[in-house]
């Protein structure tokens, strides 16, 4: 069996509103409702609604032989409920077909796996509960961590929580001569299967599709199938992992990305021996070929495939450490608003905005950031965090 496994990440953060020093101690609402709603509505029109409709068509057309997986962050689920119930409904219908798998992640797209097992566990559980609630009792079996961040230790934690498999990046520096097109197993818990992203073929669609300076432009379904067929026969699975916003947001409709996806299944069925599978099917059907060793965490970001998009510079480390200093206090507080803010403040995007790696040439990081500079992002976040810290202190004191 040779198979293609599509997984799409669906996530939007709760962006902070401009929060000034003078607001500390007085204004306890941090979220930019207007901006967040606009982002969701715009993306709904450009991406979520048309792409969900397209996938629904394909599932019907191929009577379930075409299938995909989603990981939908909790911050996105919350915003769909508030701003885009139409999008939520279309996801619910997709899942109801039985040919769409949902993956588990941390509720607020957090980096807790790197800092606190307890918080990580709580956020995973919360995401699981929320999916059950919104998708008719659905229980995910496969895990994907924020930004595909993975290490041997994280894998072990995930296994301990009862998952059969986990998705991560097929990073060159962990694979060496090995191919990403096999199932591997966690180095500490051989029963946990690890699916690796084929970053070349994934990024051909996600990043290079509309790049006119790319030698292979334009990308056609025929070309893509030729590449699939060129993969050695014994290699079993091609994992195509990408942000869902690839369709219509990162690659606009006029690039032809929707037509490409509409016709890709047909081209694959007709001209190759590949099928489509979801991650849990792959895990059930294919054996692990060996352990994959990942002693230090990897991710799917940037050329380095490491954590430096979110952590590592002084701004990010300071903000991150200050945030988790609050963890022990917040644990004892039973206040829904504080708990909500605690979760939303952990979302990885806040730290991404503070990245200075591409500050000079202002590339992809700048594009996704609502701030002019990483310094602005840092100051705003720290102002909010200072207020949050005061509320937590106050609340834990009043309890005593």
């Amino acid at each position, binding site marked *: 069996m040779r198979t293609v496994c599509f997984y799409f990440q669906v996530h939007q953060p709760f962006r902070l509103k401009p929060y*000034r*020093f*003078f*607001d*500390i*101690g*007085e204004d306890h609402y941090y979220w930019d409702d207007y901006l967040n709603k606009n982002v969701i509505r715009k993306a709904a029109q450009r991406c979520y609604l048309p792409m969900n409709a397209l996938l629904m068509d394909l599932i019907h057309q191929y009577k379930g032989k075409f299938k995909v997986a989603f990981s939908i962050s909790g911050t996105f689920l919350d915003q769909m409920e508030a701003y885009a119930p139409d999008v939520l409904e279309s996801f619910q219908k997709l899942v109801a077909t039985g040919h769409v798998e949902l993956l588990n992640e941390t509720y607020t797209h957090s980096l807790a796996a790197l800092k606190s097992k307890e918080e990580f566990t709580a956020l995973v559980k919360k995401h699981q509960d929320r999916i059950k609630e919104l998708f008719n009792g659905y229980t995910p079996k496969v895990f994907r961590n924020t930004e595909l961040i993975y290490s041997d230790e994280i894998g072990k934690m995930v296994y301990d929580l009862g998952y059969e498999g986990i998705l991560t990046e097929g990073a060159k520096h962990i694979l060496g001569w090995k191919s990403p097109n096999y199932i591997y197993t966690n180095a500490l818990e051989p029963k946990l299967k690890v699916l690796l992203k084929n970053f070349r073929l994934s990024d051909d669609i996600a990043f290079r599709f509309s790049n006119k300076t790319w030698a292979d432009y334009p990308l056609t379904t025929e070309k893509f199938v030729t590449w699939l067929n060129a993969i050695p026969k014994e290699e079993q699975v091609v994992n195509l992992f990408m942000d869902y916003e690839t369709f219509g947001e990162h690659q606009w409709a006029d690039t032809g990305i929707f037509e490409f996806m509409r016709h890709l299944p047909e081209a694959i069925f007709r001209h190759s021996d590949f099928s489509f599978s979801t991650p849990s099917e792959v895990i059930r059907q294919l054996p692990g070929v060996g352990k994959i060793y990942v002693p230090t965490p990897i991710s799917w970001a940037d050329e380095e495939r490491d954590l430096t998009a979110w952590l590592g*510079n*002084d*701004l990010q*480390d*300071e*903000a991150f*450490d*200050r945030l988790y200093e609050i963890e022990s206090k917040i644990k004892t507080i039973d206040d829904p608003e504080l708990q909500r803010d605690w979760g939303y403040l952990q979302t990885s995007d806040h730290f991404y905005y503070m990245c200075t790696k591409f500050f000079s040439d202002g590339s992809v990081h700048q594009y996704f950031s609502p701030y002019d*500079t990483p*310094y602005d992002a*840092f*100051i705003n976040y*720290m*102002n909010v*965090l*200072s207020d949050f*810290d*005061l509320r937590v202190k106050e609340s834990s004191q009043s309890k005593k």
Partner: protein
Amino acid sequence: MRVLMFGWEFPPHISGGLGTACYGLVKGMNHHNQKVIFVVPKLWGDEENLADFVNGSDISINYREKKFKKIWKNLTYLEVSSFLVPYLGPEEFQKFTDYTIHDKVDVDESIFTNKYEFSGKYGKNLMEEVSRYALVGAQIARDRSDFDIIHAHDWLAFPAGIAAKEISGKPLVVHVHATEFDRSGESVNKPVYEIERAGMHAADHVLAVSALTRNIVIKKYGVPAHKVSVLHNAVLDASIIKSAYQKKVPEKIVTFLGRITFQKGPEYFVEAAKKVIDRDPNVRFVMAGSGDLLNRMIQRVAELRIANKFHFTGFLKGDDVDHMYAISDVYVMPSVSEPFGIAPLEAVRHNTPVIISKQSGVAEVLRNAIKIDFWDVDAMADAIFALLHYEGISKMFKELGSEELKKLKWEHVAAKLITVYEKTIAQQS
């Protein structure tokens, strides 16, 4: 006494301390019933009626006048660097040029036309405007004779003062509010330095806003010491400001408020903050303002891991400035080089104890403040800690500081100025 004064800006349309100081001085002169003809490149029409205001943009130049040609010839070297804007860093320069593009007044290219519309700002035509302003000075000195002495404020108006002296033969006093060394450290802008130097040497008497500045004038500009005297600034209103604005955080607040540039010494404030926070977590530091060192300060604060106790507000305006003073428990001005520095006096008006660097002119007039060397971050940290924790000392500073403030009146400054005028005129005749 009748004084012909050349300034660059006048309230309410000002961008810095120069305009405020000119206002105070004119007000003081008014108090003593002295007549002031005050010339600015551009009048807005809503200036308070304190002087005989002359709008530089209204003056038509008689370009056939031979003496003017000579003055003009001596000024042409200014044109070389007409693109340099001495007050601004590159970032601010960008903002200013953007601004002038949108806000451009149609300016005739030729300096020697009849009239010239000044922007009166610190824009990219600054040098051209300074040169043209000199011709305005010459023309006024030719047209009028109702003055006994000429007084020029800072280098922007020095060429006008020199020209007026040349035409009228009346004595010239130049007033140094800041030097190029204060603005730029050791990397001085040569043409600006040259104008400053020419003004000081052409003058019959030089006024410096502090002993600190007087020293610079003598040492760096080679002006004979007997020709230079100190004329400290004062405050327009010494009354205590009772703000209704309440602090929203439980911690005490230590504030830096000013441009975040080399001259103001922001990095020493950050280092001192680290030392205080290590000893006392119940304090927040605030750096209010903007400038070319802002991002470097943010970076340093993150590096020191004190960002949960150290906040940046960005540029503050209007009520926010008052609010900031009102909620501050200590105000720190760690300037590396500050000719005078009026901000600590504002803090005193808000009953906030102040720490100022010995390298600031205001340290010469404010006795009830803690004075430290700008580079001595240990002493700065000690002082902050003391003012935050030892009720006695901060209470004393609050009481005595506001008493002291009441003595800093512009009418006293003007009285002193009048004696300087009298001596200068006496010497000349």
